[in-house]
């Protein structure tokens, strides 16, 4: 299991915001979803997941609510705020720009 240590902090934010933009989830479910959607390529170590989530909460981009979960316990569910949605749009744009620039370079053929 490779630790996604190359993921800069900013990119992790983008991923989390996107996932939460689709539906509210709790921490465990987020990490499952991420693994599932990316085909196990992107995995976040649980230890760095929660600090990232808390930071997003402090910035006001996600908000948290305690809900009753399946096994009759409380679970903390995060969801995207309106502010967060704007942030997500911006981060997506930035990411697209960056990745397409990199792709262009990578696609260069040998002269």
């Amino acid at each position: 299991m490779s630790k996604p240590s190359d993921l800069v902090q900013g990119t992790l934010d983008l991923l989390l915001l996107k996932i939460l933009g689709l539906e509210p989830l709790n921490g465990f479910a987020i990490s499952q979803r991420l693994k599932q959607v990316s085909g196990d390529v992107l995995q976040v170590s649980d230890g760095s997941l929660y600090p990232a989530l808390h930071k997003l909460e402090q910035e006001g981009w996600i908000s948290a609510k305690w809900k009753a979960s399946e096994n009759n316990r409380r679970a903390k569910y995060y969801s995207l705020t309106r502010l967060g949605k704007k942030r997500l749009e911006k981060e997506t744009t930035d990411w697209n720009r960056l990745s397409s620039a990199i792709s262009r370079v990578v696609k260069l053929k040998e002269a």
Partner: protein
Amino acid sequence: MRSKHWWYTIPLRLRSLFRQDRVNQELDEEIQDHIEQKTQELIGKGFSPHEARRSALVEFGGVEQSKEECRDTRKVNWIQNLVKDLRHGLRLLRKSPGFTVVAVLTLALGIGANTAIFSLADVIIRRPISLPQLDRLVAVSEVATASDDTGISAANFRDLESECHALSALAAYQNVSVSLTGQTEPEKLNGVAITANFFSVIGVQPGLGRSFLPEEEEAGKDRVLVLSEAFWRQHFSGRPDVLGQTVFLDGEDYKVVGVMPPKFAFPLGRHAFWKPLAMSPAERESRTNLTLSAVGLLAPESELNQTRVEFETLWTHLSQQFPQANAGRILRVINLRDQVVLDYNRQFALLLMGVVAFVLLIACANIGNLQLARATGRAREVAVRSAMGASRYRIAAQFLTESVLLAFLGGVLGILFAVWGVSILRSTLPPQVEEICDLNNLRVNSTAILFTLGVTLAAGILAGIAPAWHQTKSDIQNSLREGGGRVLGGRKHMRNVFLVGEVALALVLLVGAGLMIRSFSSLAYAERSIAPDSLLTFHLDLPNRYSDPIKAKTFYAEFLSRIQTIPGVQSAGLVSGLPYSYYDEPVSIKIPGRTQSSSTDLPVVMQEAASPDYFRTVQMKIREGRGFDIRDDLGTPSVAIISETMAQRLWPGENPVGKTFQIVETPSSSPSLVVVGVVSDTRHEIFDRSFRSILYLPFQQTPGQSMDFVLRTTEPPLQLLSAVRSELRWIDSNIAIENPRTMTKLIAEQTNGLQYVASLMAFFGGIALILTIIGIYGVVAQSVNERKREIGIRMALGAQGQKVLAIILRSSFSLIAIGLAIGVVLSLALTQLIASLIYGVSAWDLTAFALVTSLLTVVALLACYIPARRSMRVDPVVALRDE
């Protein structure tokens, strides 16, 4: 968007701050829950419960570590942010001592000046008098609607005092002027005659001895005095045995029964003593002479409004009882403080506050610019922080905090400067200021410190807004790139705004100062045509024994003839009140054959008594008819000479010589007066905007008890003073010559206050100019620095040094021109606000505007030129190479 962001997360942050335990517990729960779920998943995959749990924990990584990191992100709430920023800011300031010292000093001077002037304005506007119960004291006065004459008549005072219930006591007082005799040279003293309850009403009792008894308000029993502390120190060396000593006033002996505590100043002005108010029976009955002032103490349950209502009722009763006497006057009841603060003074104080505020604004612009330049140098630091997760707003907040920290340091030092400034003010303010406020109150008090706090905060935010704002716009990528060579457009724009703003503000300030200076000089040199340097002036107050008009007339005639024999005296005259001497005596004129609707509609003119040679001495011309001569005496027909303005006003288009009129206020069956001449106009008060209507009567027919004398001399006037004194002594050795001075000095004393204001404004204007020069220099130097590559390219392409210089200068000049234009427009608008404070020149005085604009243009151009010259010395090779 930034404010919404903060607002949104406030409950969250508050919770982190105040309910830490709860939040920590929730964090625990959350993580435990995650591990639980993980464990369940692994059990599902076939692990044993024990192994599943262990595996889940391992996979999680350090639980405690994670919790700590979560707590760390939370710890980033605004109070801790602030503390971090402050510490970081302090560190940065320490690292660049040059910048810090310059910025802190500049801010300290600006803030200090603001605080000092605020303290002055505070005293003038809010605390001119310091009395213990000032809020419960009211001033009661009658106001004549036609002439604006204010005061209270003795009879009305007695009636009001006995009838009013809203006041627990009403006291009367009157300024008196006497000669201190019994010394080699009599000395003029100012004192106050008061009713016995005066000290209890105002709430300050003599520190030594006692105050007055009611029975001492009778002539003959009133030979007691309470001295001022200053007089006691000066004439009795502060000896405690002063009580019972004798003081000779106007040749009569008075016994000292008390001494006032130090720093007591009511009424305002320097008074040497207080004595009981003893009036003759005739004076007591007068209902028309507004000779007294009244101050009352509100009863514990009363308020000002109900007191006003009660007095209105009382006044209506009195007016019904005495319709003739009380006609044309209303009663005014106001808080004592309001009586002292005149609009005029308030406006000057506010003007000065505006001036120092402008200076501080210019200083903030300079510092803002400096900080902007520094921020660019820190671009990489900022970029790294941002890449590590700090939001733009956090970084902007940090810049703002640094700026406020800088301002705070400046503010603390500024308070020290303010204290120093206040003491300078106290020692340099002209004595006229003591007539409008008690300078003992002038100090940096808690209100001033609160003001300083506010100003400091505002200055810090203002100066820091530019770099902070700029930060929210900057692009990280650009800054991370090596060298960051490209000019960030936002920064240049902001710099230009600063430059234009500074130039505009400086222009407005300098125009204001210029107007004040022009105003002052036009007044000070107002009477140059009559050669005031060769006029000696002084004042005499005749003591009571000259109350018989014949005695007074004889005295004056003899005195005049004696001084005319003094060698060096060309001519001598006397008049009730010289121009510029604060004299006023409004009277109403009744012209036979003209119907007036009511007695309040009678024209009001100023009455003066004069000697025949007076007009000649002050070079006033007789336009029609004749001047006074020895024919005019007691017993001969009553004559009058009127000023041109009065002639124009009362007999327009006609020759008034030979016309008759009556003066309403003359007590006896008012005789008809015949106009025998018209004399040229003369300005009476330095602040008059038009000529007054003045009526002159021969002194032989109406000798007053107090006269001004004026002598035209061939030698320097003051040299003849001792000769004049000896002539006076020969006639009566108990009369003092008061205020001997040349006419020039007399006029100057009226303009002292204006001169002081003009000097202050010039001083601050100069500071603003220096700050602006520094600002322009800095901006142009930065601009040259940034454009080095461009310059290098141009030069490599063959442009001469001169051409490059022209290019640089052109852009700076256009900015300065914009600043000047904005400044001129602003000035045109703002000077209208202070138009009422400017005399002798219009608020849009062309000379002032032109001079100031030229000065500022020249200076600004120089400030551009010198750093721009550096652009000529750019080595194209170096510039192009230097990325």
